[in-house]
């Protein structure tokens, strides 16, 4: 890979090119799903290619190819340069990059059990066993389980002298029980919806999740939801489980702090952000107990946003985002950091493969654990919601609405009644300012969101979100009015 990267960089480094970097990526993935204890998708994907990024005349150009012959690299480099030159027709300013050192490193994410070394037979067997366990419960009408793993090795080389060889291994697994009865479809998923839990780990994650043990409870809850009362409408104290809170962080903190959104470069698709530059260090984003970091370092945990260097050669960092409720930081790139006068990038540029341009993406945007016990968090009259079912937020990230798979009425710290079809909504900053209890590190989990969409052409990225069950005061619940 190193030779390929050097040849690509050489092809791209010529008169007029003021900066160039190349990423050579070798990726493989395994996807397994089952439905009602029969194989669904059984597939592997293997891909290798080169993405070449250049600055010419103050404009960016990018071309990617899987033709890795000398001719293919030359053609891609020429195209990247031609593309950059065309940008002069609509240019307001020259691209300026915040300074960065040259780095040389080889790094691989920890992986106790290589997920590709575990046989497909064994992996499918687990999924089919899960389906069978779910189907044992009368009323479960559909059982689905899934497993995914990937290994991506990337070699980054830049004209400032960086040479970075990184390998990341990701594993994910989960299951869902569906129950259709009397014109109503209910479901329960474990450990999270939309495929389960994903982390920067090997097959040890699957062992840790202990999926089979949780299958009977999920199946029973899916069926029991038909008999549950509808979640009431009104203002209630709300307790969220860690997985739902992870997605809440993703949508109402993670995306708004992307500096490219703030500066308008995503305006046509993903949108912009309410966190205009005047809000930095002045906005009370949350209550005093709310602390959020954007942390790509291994010390933060095995998140989908954990790495050694981002995709433009900037080291992984822990950047404070919200400190004691105060908004203190954006996620930045070398270009956007320079635009707002910051000395360095916070290292959040990521591409979803060799064929795509790096963009500012969440790494691990996490709510740091609180000091309260779980009993304290639940010590309220209100509603507890678990496991995401729907999520939506406006294009500046003010107004959100989430739905969950299940809820319970809580009275004096006890779950007293199951509730179905729960939803809640609000305005991002009002929501975070209403936070009055966050449970401690023993309940904190680094959740994985595997499919965050952004960019044109759209890229899907894995992000991490650490959270522990937390409580919010007087939240608007049930405005979706599902009868």
């Amino acid at each position, binding site marked *: 890979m190193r030779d390929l990267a050097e040849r690509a960089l050489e092809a791209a480094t010529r008169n007029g090119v003021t900066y160039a970097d190349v990423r050579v990526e070798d990726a493989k993935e395994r996807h397994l799903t089952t439905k009602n204890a029969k194989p669904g998708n059984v597939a592997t994907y*293997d891909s290798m290619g080169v993405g070449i990024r250049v600055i010419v005349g103050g404009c960016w150009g990018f071309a990617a190819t899987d033709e890795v012959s000398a001719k293919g690299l030359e053609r891609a480099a020429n195209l990247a340069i031609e593309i950059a030159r065309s940008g002069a027709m609509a240019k307001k300013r020259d691209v300026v990059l915040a300074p960065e050192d040259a780095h040389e490193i080889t790094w691989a994410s920890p992986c106790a059990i290589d997920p590709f070394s575990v046989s497909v037979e064994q992996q499918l067997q687990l999924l089919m066993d899960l389906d069978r366990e779910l189907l044992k419960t009368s009323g479960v009408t559909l059982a689905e389980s899934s497993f995914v793993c990937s290994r991506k090795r990337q070699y980054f080389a830049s004209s400032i002298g960086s040479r970075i060889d990184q390998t990341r291994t990701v594993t994910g697994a989960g299951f869902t029980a569906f129950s259709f009865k009397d014109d109503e479809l209910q479901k329960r998923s474990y450990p999270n919806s939309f495929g389960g839990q994903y982390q920067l780990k090997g097959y040890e994650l699957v062992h840790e999740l202990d999926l089979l043990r949780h299958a009977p409870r999920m199946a029973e809850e899916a069926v029991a939801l038909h008999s549950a009362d509808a979640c009431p409408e009104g203002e209630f104290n709300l307790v969220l489980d860690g997985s739902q809170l992870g997605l809440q962080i993703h949508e109402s903190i993670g995306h708004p702090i992307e500096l490219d959104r703030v500066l308008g470069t995503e305006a*046509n698709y993903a949108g912009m952000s309410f966190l205009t530059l005047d809000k930095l260090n002045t906005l009370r984003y949350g209550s005093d107990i709310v602390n959020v970091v954007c942390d790509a370092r291994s010390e933060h945990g095995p998140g989908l946003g954990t790495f050694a260097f981002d995709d433009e050669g900037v080291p992984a960092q822990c950047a404070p985002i919200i400190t004691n409720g105060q908004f203190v930081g954006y996620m930045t790139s070398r270009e956007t950091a320079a635009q707002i006068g910051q000395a360095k990038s916070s290292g959040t540029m990521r591409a979803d493969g060799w064929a795509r341009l790096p963009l500012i993406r969440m790494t691990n945007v996490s709510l740091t654990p609180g000091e309260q016990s779980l009993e304290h968090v639940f010590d309220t009259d209100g509603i507890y919601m678990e496991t995401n079912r*729907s999520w939506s937020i406006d294009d500046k990230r*003010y107004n959100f609405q989430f739905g969950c798979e299940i809820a319970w009425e809580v009275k004096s710290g006890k779950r007293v009644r199951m509730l179905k079809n729960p939803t809640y909504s609000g305005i991002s900053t009002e929501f975070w300012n209403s936070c009055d209890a966050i449970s401690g590190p023993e309940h904190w989990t680094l959740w994985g969101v595997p499919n965050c969409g952004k960019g044109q052409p759209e890229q899907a990225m894995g992000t991490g979100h650490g959270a522990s069950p937390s409580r919010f005061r007087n939240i608007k619940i049930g405005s979706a009015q599902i009868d």
Partner: protein
Amino acid sequence: MNESELLSRKKCQELFLAVEQAARRAGISDIEVTVGSTADSLTRFANNEIHQNVSERTTTLSVRPVIDGRTARASTNRLHRDGIQAVVDEAIALTRASEPADLLPLYEDPTISDGQHYSEAAASCTPSQRAAQVAEAIRIVETQGQTAAGIYSTAENVEVLMNSRSLFRYYFDTLTQFSITAMASDSSGWAKATSAIHQDVDPIALAERASRKATLSANPRELPPGRYTVILEPAAVLDLVGQIFMDFSGTAIADQRSFLNDRVGEKLFGSNITIYDDVAFPLQTGAPFDGEGVPRRALKLVKEGVPRQVAYSRVAARKAETETTGHGFPLPNDQGEAPVNIVIVGGKTSLDEMIASTENGILVTRLWYIREVEPYEKVMTGMTRDGTFLVRKGEVAGGLRNFRFNQSVVELLRNVEALTASERATGEEAFDMVVPGMKVADFHFTEVTRF
């Protein structure tokens, strides 16, 4: 022209032969091969300048053996001899490791079902040509004191499916897309078009439209949430109504995860709702064959408000004791099939006539971040975006702050009061379809956001 320069028929046949020989060496004779090739370029602009400008080119080979009732798929973009051998070995090992599935023998059909939607102008469009059009679109928006953001992209794609039962399907197309958001101090406007025919996408006209919307929606007022008569432009119809079509699937019904469970043949929508799936419709694009190579048949999904037909892959058709409709996804999969060439039959009311006939209502340009809240009545939530207008006494009376909606699509299709003529529409939440604009009574807005 009967093939793309990206990937010739001869090259595909050579790849198939190499795969077939490698498989035979392993004692496997039933094999399906798909090859896809893409060259996609996109010029992206924001803050009135080009800021991201990209191109990608790749070819993927995918191999699916069938062994003793089992199947699996392995894919690679390494098309040299060792790469082909490795992907065949991987596909065979994966298939052997899998379990028996509901499966039919490889599809056989000696008839030709190839297709193309190709524009030389799109395939040969250069970075400079895209940049020149973008510069002019920016100038139009900037002249109004507004800020432009958007994309101009041109792509060429080839999709080929072959199997050891002598099946050979070849499809190629181009796609030109232009999308633009014009932003003023407290308002914005949006316009987007896509077409296989490069000249059908007019960046200048789209820029003028987006800019006009931004101007008209300035100084937005706030209206309380509630039920309103809405006029949904085609892009808004596409993105919202487009959420229901995965449910027009024999597999989804068999799985009891479709809102059509026990409802096919019932009067579910208004009598003015008729929906087809037809790959041959002039404004449609896409291959005329499905993921197994079965020719796509036209379906009358909804006739005068009554769901009539759903899509069936070969396996789903066998289970339902009916015939395949040619809408199966590539195997193996767990979703089965879905219609993907939607045509909603339009009416004769123009958008201007809809506005003129509305005493008190809301005109919606575009919807955003649409997600399913409840699956049986298809309650969807989402936001309005980039051009939401008050309609009073038959006229557009200014911009409105954006709403959140929670709206059943089943109910919406019962409440359609008028339809425009259908057009090829494009948005960001559903695939491109041919749909009309709709005037809808009692649309349910539940909240208002801050802009």
